[in-house]
């Protein structure tokens, strides 16, 4: 399951649109034409959403739109800490097994129907019962109960401090409306409680949103948003500078530097919650030796890797969690040190060997990064044989443990548990490298159920140090979220989780 999650998360972030087979709806070609979109905010996203059902899609392009259409019970702020959204407040029972959420009153869906506790129950039950994309996030949930019209209780099987992140981390956990789902309209014409509602869906050219007049929160301050699909970054930037669009994230990394010098464009980048790593198969010599793994960790030039793959639009990091997260822990023991690396390689029998490095052309940055890794390892007397596979084969080979080294990334993490448990717990579902440390197991188990945030962070900090020291993963960098917009767009903030929110933005008068 989790491996599937990675497949999809990776694929969608890189622009592949994935989704399932469900009965289709016709294409509403007329929709967008009927709305006067003169004063609307125009944005260019890099690809077309596959469908707009938040529980079914896994495509980032869908979520770029749905972020503004749907709400979750709680939602992450810019530091990714959970804040009230559809739930105004919540409390946890003494035994930590029961969470009670007090829902905001007077909230309506875009079709005018009232939002109640039943909608929450319906949404979560749908995800769990139909085993939809995010069912694993609710694995600890035993029951979801509507206590009264504005109160929901979630019962869990064990203390689950990450529950808020699980239900609010992203719009895949959105609260949907039953009628909209049962009619099948949710796929193209979704009904949510968010700041904007979908009014036009001209498949293949644009999706149009109109401001929700009855939105429960602040905003929106623009009458609507038109999403256009422009995959070629040069074209999107030309549209931006020509005033055809106000915002885009379809930006070739090599253009970022020159964009920063352009006074007519605002550019911002923040480290994302995605991380890229290299790992080694500990079931095979020579990487069953910790020293051999540390030799690799010590040999890598992370700055060069970030430069080559992202033209510098990535922040090097030796742990998984980016510095923008509350879970960040500063720990960086492996600056490139070739002498030290050679010593370790020598003593562990790595020197003189040829090791395989498995990458996939589905994620071209792994292929590029592999060249740098191979050059770095050559300097310490290790030859690298790069194997470039298609992703399905890559996943198979990984599952069968048929690799020496591999390079990949994990995307869209919110809670610190997402960063470490499945990858480094000896029972973890994605521990393909075969890492096993009783101490790390203990720390990660404790972290899952520790409810005091400070104590919890302490547990993960210690686990992270151990994981880095043992070189279970050799962490490389967090790619930046790079977005650009026109100066007349005010109040926009890029976020590390790549959620693109337009409810607070304004378009200055007389421009755009």
């Amino acid at each position, binding site marked *: 399951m989790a491996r599937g999650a990675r497949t999809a998360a990776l694929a969608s972030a890189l622009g592949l649109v994935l989704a*399932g087979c469900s009965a289709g709806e016709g294409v509403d070609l007329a929709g967008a034409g009927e709305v006067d979109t003169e004063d609307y905010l125009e944005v260019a996203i890099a690809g077309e959403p596959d469908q707009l059902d938040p529980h079914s899609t896994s495509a980032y392009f869908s979520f770029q739109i749905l972020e503004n259409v749907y709400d979750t019970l709680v939602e992450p702020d810019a530091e990714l800490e959970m804040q009230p959204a559809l739930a105004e407040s919540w409390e946890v029972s003494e035994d930590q097994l029961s969470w009670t959420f007090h829902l905001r009153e007077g909230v309506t869906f875009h079709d005018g129907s009232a939002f109640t506790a039943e909608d929450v129950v319906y949404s979560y039950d749908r995800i769990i019962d139909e085993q939809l994309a995010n069912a694993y996030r609710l694995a600890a949930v035993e029951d979801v109960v509507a206590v009264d019209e504005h109160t929901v209780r979630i019962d869990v099987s064990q203390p689950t401090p990450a529950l808020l992140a699980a239900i609010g981390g992203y719009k895949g956990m959105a609260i949907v409306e039953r009628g909209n789902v049962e009619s099948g309209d949710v796929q193209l014409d979704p009904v949510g409680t968010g700041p904007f509602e979908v009014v036009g869906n001209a498949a293949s050219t644009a999706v149009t949103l109109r401001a929700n007049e009855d939105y429960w929160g602040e905003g929106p301050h623009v009458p609507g948003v038109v999403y256009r699909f422009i995959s070629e970054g040069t074209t999107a930037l030309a549209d931006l500078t020509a005033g055809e669009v106000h915002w885009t994230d379809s930006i070739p990394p090599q253009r970022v530097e020159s964009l920063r010098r352009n006074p007519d464009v605002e550019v911002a980048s923040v480290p994302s919650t995605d991380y890229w790593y290299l790992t080694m198969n500990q079931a095979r010599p020579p990487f069953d030796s910790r020293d051999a793994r540390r030799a690799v960790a010590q040999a890598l030039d992370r700055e060069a890797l970030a430069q080559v793959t992202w033209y510098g639009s990535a922040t090097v990091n030796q742990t998984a969690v980016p510095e923008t997260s509350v879970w960040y822990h500063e720990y960086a023991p492996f600056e490139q040190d070739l002498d030290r690396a050679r010593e370790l390689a020598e003593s562990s029998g790595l020197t003189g060997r040829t090791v395989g490095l498995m990458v996939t052309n589905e994620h071209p940055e792994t292929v590029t990064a592999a060249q740098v890794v191979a050059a770095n390892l050559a300097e310490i007397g290790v030859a690298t044989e790069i194997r470039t596979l298609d992703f399905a084969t890559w996943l198979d080979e990984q599952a069968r443990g048929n690799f020496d080294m591999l390079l990949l990334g994990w995307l869209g993490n919110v809670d610190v548990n997402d960063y470490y448990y499945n990858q480094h717990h000896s029972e973890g579902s994605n521990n393909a490298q075969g890492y096993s440390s009783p101490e790390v197991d203990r720390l990660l188990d404790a972290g899952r159920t520790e409810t005091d945030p400070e104590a919890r962070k302490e547990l993960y900090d210690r686990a992270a140090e151990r994981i880095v020291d043992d070189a279970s993963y050799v962490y490389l960098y967090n790619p930046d979220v790079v977005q650009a917009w026109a100066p007349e767009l005010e109040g926009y903030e890029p976020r590390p989780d790549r959620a693109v929110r337009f409810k607070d933005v304004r378009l200055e008068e007389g421009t755009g």
Partner: protein
Amino acid sequence: MSSPLLRFLARRLLHTAVVLLGVLVVVFALLQLVPGDPVRVALGTRYTQESYDALREASGLDRPLPVQFLAYLGNALTGDLGVSFRSGEPVTLILLDRLPATVSLGLTGITVALLITFPLGTWAALRRGSAADGGIRAVSQFGVSVPDFWLGLLLIIVFSTVLGLLPPSGYVPFTEDPWGWLQRVVLPGLAVGVVSGSILTRYVRSAVLDVVGSDYVRTARSKGLPRRTVVGRHVLRNALVPILTVAGVQAATMLGGLIVIEVVFAWPGLGRLVFDAVAARDYPVVQGAVLLIALVFLLINLLVDILYAVVDPRIRAS
């Protein structure tokens, strides 16, 4: 119409149908070789063994290949090309939705190519060795050498970013807003048309040169016919047969160029559809789109053959 022409047409139609069947077989076979399991990709995060088996069965991918092929063929003949793995929409509808954008771009490209080709090619040939001839050859060499996507980006930078004359991307249907459509089709139309047009210009030039040097043209000239009549009636008409051959191939090649150009200009046509569908392993859409493109390709060839027969009656007999 003479009956040899009808027989010729019947033969060519049959030929087209056989080739189309061959295309179907090849596309079907090639898709089996593409790495990546479509069911697995389609399921994404919902991957479990049960859902995998269920979807495999529902989409018929568990059946033996010959059975899958026959089923596909049977459905295709009735216009049913299956449903998209991604969106669940019928492939036929998706293709019909994208077709107008591609057709309007393709026709613009052909128009641009023809506007360039005949005047320039003929002019260069008739003034062989002059500065104009050299200039035209140099420019067409440039047009032949540049990749179409690069030309597209160059056009965007010059006409949109620097000069601010035309919108860099987007599409509006001609029927909704003809002026908006024209503004948006010019740049991608140029990008597609210039490359094909440059190649064709060189062919027109050499075809015209061949004919100009022939005996019957010298005879026509010696009879004192006006230059316009000689060029129009004798030179161009006779040069047309070799040009048609290349033009047919070029028009078809242009379809390939459209894939890239549509991606560059965010043009919602068949090309971009194929691009996205391949990336997402959306086999039914890839299959349907390739089939449609092959059909267009074959129709162009058929048209060229018919034009041959009209231009040069000797070809009907052979």
